[in-house]
């Protein structure tokens, strides 16, 4: 393993009679341990790629809401109602007349038994292009709708990744609600 060497470096620290040993450490077991650790860490790292989606629920406020005086742009709040037939969009605004908003939104029927997420994103994109300050969307899903489908609706409402290669933000502020916001005729309840 090692052998005395009286060649170069023999006089280190000023001692002419010093002896230098060539030591070969056996690193193979250490390599084994590290390779195993690396493997397990890599495996678990890939399994926990978890992200979050921020959402809120409607809450009752004690004070009256006052419009922000700094706001110069008009904004609309979009309500999405997802039921067995499709997704219904309704827009409302504190500053805009209801007549201006009645043509926005509408119903997006299901396609082959699935919600048409691309059409939803395209419709929301057209609303966003018209009223750029808009940020909020209220999602009202049916009670029987699986959570997975709701996540897909939220994905379609949040950004344009589903239809555009260039991603841009649509409605990042999501409120999940189960409280009826429309009457039987589909009119938004005040």
């Amino acid at each position, binding site marked *: 393993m090692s052998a005395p060497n009286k060649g170069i470096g023999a006089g280190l620290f000023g001692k002419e009679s010093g002896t230098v040993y060539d030591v070969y450490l056996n690193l193979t077991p250490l*390599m084994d341990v590290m390779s195993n650790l690396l493997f397990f860490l890599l495996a678990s790292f890939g399994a926990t790629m978890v992200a979050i989606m*921020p959402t809120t629920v409607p809450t009752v406020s004690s004070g009256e809401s006052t419009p922000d005086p700094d706001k110069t742009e008009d904004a609309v709040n979009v309500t999405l109602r997802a039921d067995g037939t499709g997704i219904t969009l309704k827009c409302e605004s504190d500053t805009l007349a209801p007549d201006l908003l009645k043509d926005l939104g509408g119903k997006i029927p299901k396609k082959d038994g699935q919600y048409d997420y691309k059409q939803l994103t395209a419709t929301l994109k057209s609303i966003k292009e018209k009223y750029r300050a808009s940020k909020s969307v209220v999602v009202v899903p049916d009670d029987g709708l699986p959570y997975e489908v709701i996540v897909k609706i939220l994905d379609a409402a*949040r950004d344009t990744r589903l239809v555009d290669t260039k991603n841009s933000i649509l409605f990042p502020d999501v409120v999940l609600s189960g409280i009826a916001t429309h009457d039987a005729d589909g009119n938004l309840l005040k």
Partner: protein
Amino acid sequence: MAGGGGGDGEMDVNINLTALLDILTNLLFFLMVGFMSSKASMELDGGMQLPTSTAQLEPKKAVQVTVARKELRVEKEVIAQLRDGKVVAAKTQEGKIDPLLQRLQVIRKEKNATGPEADILFVLCDKDTPYGLLRRVMMTAAEAGYPKFRMAVLMQ
């Protein structure tokens, strides 16, 4: 490098593994740092599956509520049993889940936290959970003082 070598033609070859070990150590170090910086700890047991999403936001630590297939948990404590998307044998009133409300109120009082992060819940929910159950969980949490949620999803 090579040492020895007898008359039988055998050679002891000592491969220098130091450079490779350096690389492995660096990799290990970065992986471990990355692993520790995933701030929220998650346990996806009981056959629970999260939905996939295009969301990119990183998880942050908050009080964790898990809506699994068969049970409802706060942190690691089982609060109620679930069957077919409904709470079993737990008192409920006005759409709220009483044991969840009580547990969250206790946690909120114990933590006595203030600031923007104090009223946020980290929710792990199985992808097949009906919205009716999730809505009741969220409404109960809002009643207990947690109206904001970080819904956990798997990155696409």
